[in-house]
């Protein structure tokens, strides 16, 4: 399959690469750009470990081709920290023990990022439903809900 050239801005930095049209965005991020914070947990678009923000929208990068993101802006978990300061979501997950093995965490944080953009003052139920695209096997979700609430409160003030 002949390759094609794409240009993406990822975490504020521009990248130009030749890729196969069938290359998944998640593999582009992980294998080509070596941004391995975004994870693969399934191949049926169900687990959410691969969630990133593309052109302002949380997407499952395992179900987007890199060529579909051509010309776009991607935000991954690696891009949340600013000048050595953690994003309130990262702080919230840390303070509230919202992670154990850490594998679902980048996707969970990026999904929460969009959730809080759309719903800055969510109820617990809104958080649980808002994160239905992200599976966690370690925490039982309770500390994740607290983590997102922690971040929401900080971001509101």
């Amino acid at each position, binding site marked *: 399959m002949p390759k094609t050239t794409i240009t993406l801005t990822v975490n504020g930095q521009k990248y130009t690469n030749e890729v196969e049209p069938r290359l998944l965005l998640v593999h582009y991020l992980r294998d080509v750009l070596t941004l391995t914070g975004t*994870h693969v947990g399934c191949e049926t678009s169900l687990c959410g470990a691969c969630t990133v923000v593309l052109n302002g929208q949380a997407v499952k990068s395992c179900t987007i081709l890199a060529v579909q993101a051509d010309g776009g802006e991607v935000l991954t978990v690696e891009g949340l920290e600013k000048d050595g300061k953690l994003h309130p979501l990262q702080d919230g997950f840390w303070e509230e023990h919202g992670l154990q*093995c850490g594998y679902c965490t980048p996707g969970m944080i990026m999904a929460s990022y969009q959730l809080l953009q759309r719903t800055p003052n969510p109820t617990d139920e809104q958080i649980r439903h808002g994160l239905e695209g992200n599976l966690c096997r370690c925490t039982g979700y309770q500390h994740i809900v607290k983590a997102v609430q922690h971040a929401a409160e900080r971001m509101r003030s």
Partner: protein
Amino acid sequence: MSIFPKLVGARIKRREDPRLITGQATYTDDLQLPGMLYLSILRSIYAHAKINSIDVLKAKQLAGVVAVFTGEDLKGKTGSIPCGAEAPGMKLPHHPLLAEGAVRYVGEPVVAVVATSRYIARDALDLIEVDYDPLDPVVDPEQGAEAGSPIVHEGFADNIFFRIPMANPAIDQTLKEADVVVKLRIVQQRLCPMAMEPRAVVAQWDRGSKQLTMWTSTQIPHLVRSQLAEALHLPENRVRVIAPEVGGSFGAKLNFYREEVLAPYIAMQLGKPIKWTQTRREDLAATIHGRGQVNYVEASAKKDGTITAIKVKIFADIGAYPQLYTPLIPAFTALMSSGCYKVPVMDLEQIGVFTNKIATDAYRGAGRPEAAFIAERIVEEVATALHMDSTEVRRKNFIPKDGFPYFTPTGLAYDSGDYDAAFSKALQIADYDTLRKEQAALRKQGKYLGIGIASYVEICGLGPSVLFSPKFKSGGWESCTVRVDPSGNITVLTGISPHGQGQETSFAQMVVDELGVEIDNVMVLHGDTGIIQAGVGTFGSRGMALGGTSLLMALEKVKAKARTIASHMMEAPPENLDFGDGKVYLKSDPSKFILFQQVVDAAYNFKAGVPNIEPGLDATSFYEPANCLFPFGTHIAVVEVDAETGAIQFRRYIAVDDCGNIVNPMLLEGQIHGGIAQGLAQALYEEVVYDENGQLLSGSLMDYAVPKAAMMPWLELDNTVTPTPVNPLGVKGVGEAGTIGSTSAIFNAVLDALAPLGIKHIDMPLRPEKVWRAIQDAKGGQG
């Protein structure tokens, strides 16, 4: 007693998290090595079939494919995959890396392809043609045990892996004399551990120095090293196994898999690093399953509720090829099936049956959720038969708090416990009596509230070395080195291998309390056999109890030497010295001290003239536990069942657990939450489904119902503290406790809700459709 505030017992946030929340951690698939090639595996599409031929020519010709291997190519080249446990009389089949002549489960590896990219390695699989003659599969373990069943392993006369009777001659008479006898058939469905990180392996052979390195997502790097060295006929000291960050495990990665030999073998053959990463479909089919039992239970009781005997027959659905721990799981069930109760007569039988599926093996609880379920259903059924409240039956039979160590008829010695205290606390938090009144009132309105109780005890902290077979290649001890470097930093090298349990934090808390150093000066390393002196690993809820005790022992040795040095420098008796706030100080007058750093300087610069010591300041300890550990507790689930739809809603979920002393309460809560989620999932959502042809129907996350956030109730946790006398920390272990209590509590709640409809039993998972059907059947079809 130290005058400085203690970190042990504090809810401090984790030192693991900074790398995890910023995406800087390295999991196995993150690794890229120069020249690395990618391994993909063609797997069987039949549960049972003869392989007539395999045509790999087109695959070999695909650009980018470097090599292709079949079972014929590998025959005799490596050792086979071992079973690391023994059951008397067990018949072990040959367990090859790639199928030899036949396939025996959907997902069994048949052909290995190596290519220059992930995508080409995957493309090549579609070009391989395997000519199969399908054979009749064994899908049901009870049918597999019957005469005339298809035979999973053609060389064997039948499908019996082992048959272990633990007969008690008093059983028949005791059942006969009873006032009531209850009978149950319980199905413990197969479950997928479904860690978020699929299994992955990267293997590299250094042909210059003849050393093999394998990165693998595992719970047991040292044990994997021992097995791998044997399988590849390499000296163990030339094999290094590294567990990088591991994305969850729950027992699935307490194992030794075909791919963990295949990848390194191929790396040695080709002289290139090899990466294999599992797809989720491969994971659900070809990573071990949990549970997988059918239990036939009889129990007898007197009319006052005293349970007089338990008889359990366990059919264990083994799978086709036993894996590392497979026989031990039903053994745990048998041993623990009397639960919290003083039952004098137990008659047990375990029958392991080969089936055409992936093996069953350890999954969070590993035999003990099944045991607790047996005990707690017996209590409920006895209560129903005697028209007693099940709380009365529990209280009647609880081992009393002065009854420890308690010796079960199965030969276990429960260490310590106060079952009634946790039980009473849970009832009080639930406001049990009010709930029963409300339940009665709601029933009159045709509404079904259910209150489910589970009082569990479990066996963990594995364990005394005598319990482990030599084939496991280890005892059950744990090892720790504490190393103080010349600049006064502390490195802990622990043989446990955490993957979310948080010991980089909880161990650091212990070091701070013992040595008085700053927590930022403490680093905890694990998971790399090239760095860690020795180890067994993280499983069986042993991390803090055994890993922590070995740490405490090593710290005591370091402190003893530090005291010797300080005693010389301060001219004070060593027993008068203690550690805190960066100092070594006189207990009777803390204003007299030297800095800990001065002790370290003396140890390394070695100019203080301390007699009769060697330079340096580090120590290694190995802790051999004298017994297992027995955490316990009571969970109460309160649910509402919609009789029109079968849907189940949670009103409350209460867990009162006793894991002994607690090092970090926040980590403990996390373990219990996660454990409850998986136990709840077994009760309500998850099941592995094979059809009558042995085809895996639950082969993706679209069909295997792992709970999402909105499917979990809010969990109310409380605890009692009954330290164990078995280890100096008094810690019992918590990793699996939540799972063991929850499945039973939730099942009991739903059955309690449906009791007025005459429903006696429903097999798990209690999906709305099954609940609805049970209601219809009970109504005589008048839906």
